[in-house]
C-alpha cells in the first residue's frame, strides 16, 4: 500500500532522513518510533506530499508520488487521514464544522455530509459536542474530534503524528481504544511517537528511527 524506496530528505545539513526503505500493507497498524528530531514527522509529511524527497521514490497504492502537479496532491490528500500532534481544530468553527470540512472540500452533498459527520461524531462519542467550539472541549475530546475529522472521508490510511500528545492518561486510553477499533475495522494506520509503550499489543509492527535512519530493532 505504501512503499518507501531509498527515500532521502535533508531539511538542514545533517538533519533529515536517509535511505529510508519500508512498506506498509493494507490493514496494518505500524508504529514509527524515534526521539524528537529523528525524522518521524518528515516521513509522514512526505506521505501526504507536504515535503518532496531529495531522492528515492514513494509509492502510494502502487503509484509513484510526485508533488509537482498541485491538483494530484490535493486529490491524494483527500484520500489520506491526518492527525497532528496538536489537534489543530479551527478555533472559530464548531466541532461539526471542523469534522465536516474534509467532506466539503471533497464536494459531498449537504445531506450526505450531515450523515457522515453525525456518524463520525457518534463513533467518537462527540454527538453532544457537535455545536461546541474546540476551546470548550477537553484535550482528549479535541484529539478525538481531530481523528473523526481525519476519518470522515474514509481515507485508505490514517497518519497519526503523536496521537497521544497533549492528552491526559484517561483520554489517551480512550484514543488508543478508538485507534484499535478503527484498525480492527480495516483501517491502515501509521502512527509516529517517541513513547511506544502505550501501543504495546495494539501496533502490529514497530519501525525505529534514529538520526534519520530506519531499523526494525531499537
Amino acid at each position, binding site marked *: 500500500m505504501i512503499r518507501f524506496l531509498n527515500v532521502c530528505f535533508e531539511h538542514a545539513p545533517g538533519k533529515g532522513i536517509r535511505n529510508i526503505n519500508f512498506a506498509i500493507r493494507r490493514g496494518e497498524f505500524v508504529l514509527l518510533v524515534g526521539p524528537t528530531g529523528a525524522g518521524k514527522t518528515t516521513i509522514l509529511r512526505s506521505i501526504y506530499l507536504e515535503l518532496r524527497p531529495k531522492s528515492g521514490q514513494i509509492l502510494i497504492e502502487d503509484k509513484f508520488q510526485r508533488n509537482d502537479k498541485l491538483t494530484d496532491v490535493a486529490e491524494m490528500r483527500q484520500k489520506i487521514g491526518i492527525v497532528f500532534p496538536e489537534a489543530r481544530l479551527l478555533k472559530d468553527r464548531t466541532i461539526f464544522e471542523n469534522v465536516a470540512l474534509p467532506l466539503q*472540500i471533497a464536494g459531498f452533498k449537504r445531506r450526505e455530509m450531515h450523515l457522515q459527520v453525525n456518524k463520525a461524531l457518534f463513533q467518537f462519542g462527540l454527538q453532544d459536542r457537535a455545536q461546541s467550539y474546540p476551546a470548550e472541549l477537553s484535550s482528549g475530546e479535541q484529539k478525538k474530534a481531530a481523528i473523526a475529522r481525519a476519518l470522515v472521508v474514509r481515507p485508505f490510511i490514517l497518519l497519526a503524528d503523536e496521537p497521544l500528545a497533549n492528552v491526559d492518561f484517561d483520554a489517551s486510553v480512550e484514543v488508543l481504544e478508538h485507534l484499535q477499533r478503527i484498525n480492527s475495522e480495516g483501517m491502515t494506520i501509521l502512527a509516529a511517537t517517541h513513547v511506544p509503550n502505550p501501543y504495546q499489543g495494539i501496533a502490529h509492527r514497530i519501525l525505529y528511527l534514529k538520526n534519520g535512519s530506519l531499523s526494525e530493532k531499537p
Partner: protein
Amino acid sequence: MTLNFIISEALNGLRKSSLHTFVSVAAVTLAVLFISTFCYTIFNLKEATDNLLEGLEVQAFIALSVLSEQHESIKTGLLALDDRWQVTYISREAAAQEFAAEFDPDLFNVLDENPLPASFKIQLPSAAMNPVYLQAVTENILALDGIDDVIYDRDLLEMLSAARQKAAAVGAVVALVVVLLAMGVTVNALRLKLYAQQEAFHMMQLLGATLRTIHTIIWMQGTILGLAGGILGTWLTGVIAWLLQLQLPSELAVETPFLPVFILIGVLMTTLCSFFAIRRFLTI
C-alpha cells in the same frame, strides 16, 4: 470541488472574522469615498469653468463706413470661419438702445448722431475657449472685410485657462496619490484579514483543497468586501453631495453623474488588491 464550498467558505470567513470584515469594508468605503470625492470635485470644477467660459463672448465691430446691406455678407463670412459659432447681429440702433438702458437714457438726446457701430456677438463652444485659439480667431475675424475691431474678456479667459492647466497638473498628481492611498488602505485591510484566516487556509490545503480553490475563496471574499464597501462609499458620496447642495445657492448645482460606477470601482479595486494580497501575503 464545488462552487458551493467556495461560496460558503467565502461567506463563512467574512462572518467568522467579523472585526476584520468590518475593518476591510470600512477601508474600501473610505477608498471609494476618496476616489469619488476627488472625481466629483474635478468634474464640478470643470463644469463651473465651462459655465464661465460659455458666458464669454467675442464681439466683432463693423466699420461705420460699411453699408448695412453688406452686413449679411460679413455674417456669412464669419460662419464660414467656423460653423460651430452662434453669431448674433446687433444693429447700431439696438446697440444704442442697450447702451442707453445701461448707462444714460438721455445720452442720445444730446448727441446728434449715434456713434456706436453695428456688431456681431459670437458665442464659441466652451471646449474651444483658450487664449491661443481666441488669438487666432481674432486675427481671422479682423482679416474679414468690413470688420473694424474684435474684443473679448482676455483677462478672464487667461485666468480660467491658467487655472484649468494648474488643476489638470495638480489633479493628475492628486489622483495618483488618492488611488495609491486607497489601494494601500485596502491591501492592508485584506492583509490583516488574510493573516486571520491563514491557519484555516493551511488546514484546508492539508485536507485536500487546491491552492486555486483557496485563491478563489480569497478572491471572492475580496469581491464581496468590494461590493459592500463600494455600495457604502457610493451612498456616502451621494449623501455628502446632497448635504453640500443644501448649503449652496440653487444656481450652483453639485452634479454627481454615473454614481453607481463607483460601486464597480470598489469591486474592481478590491479584486485587484485581493490578487496582490494573495501573491504577497499568503504563505501556505
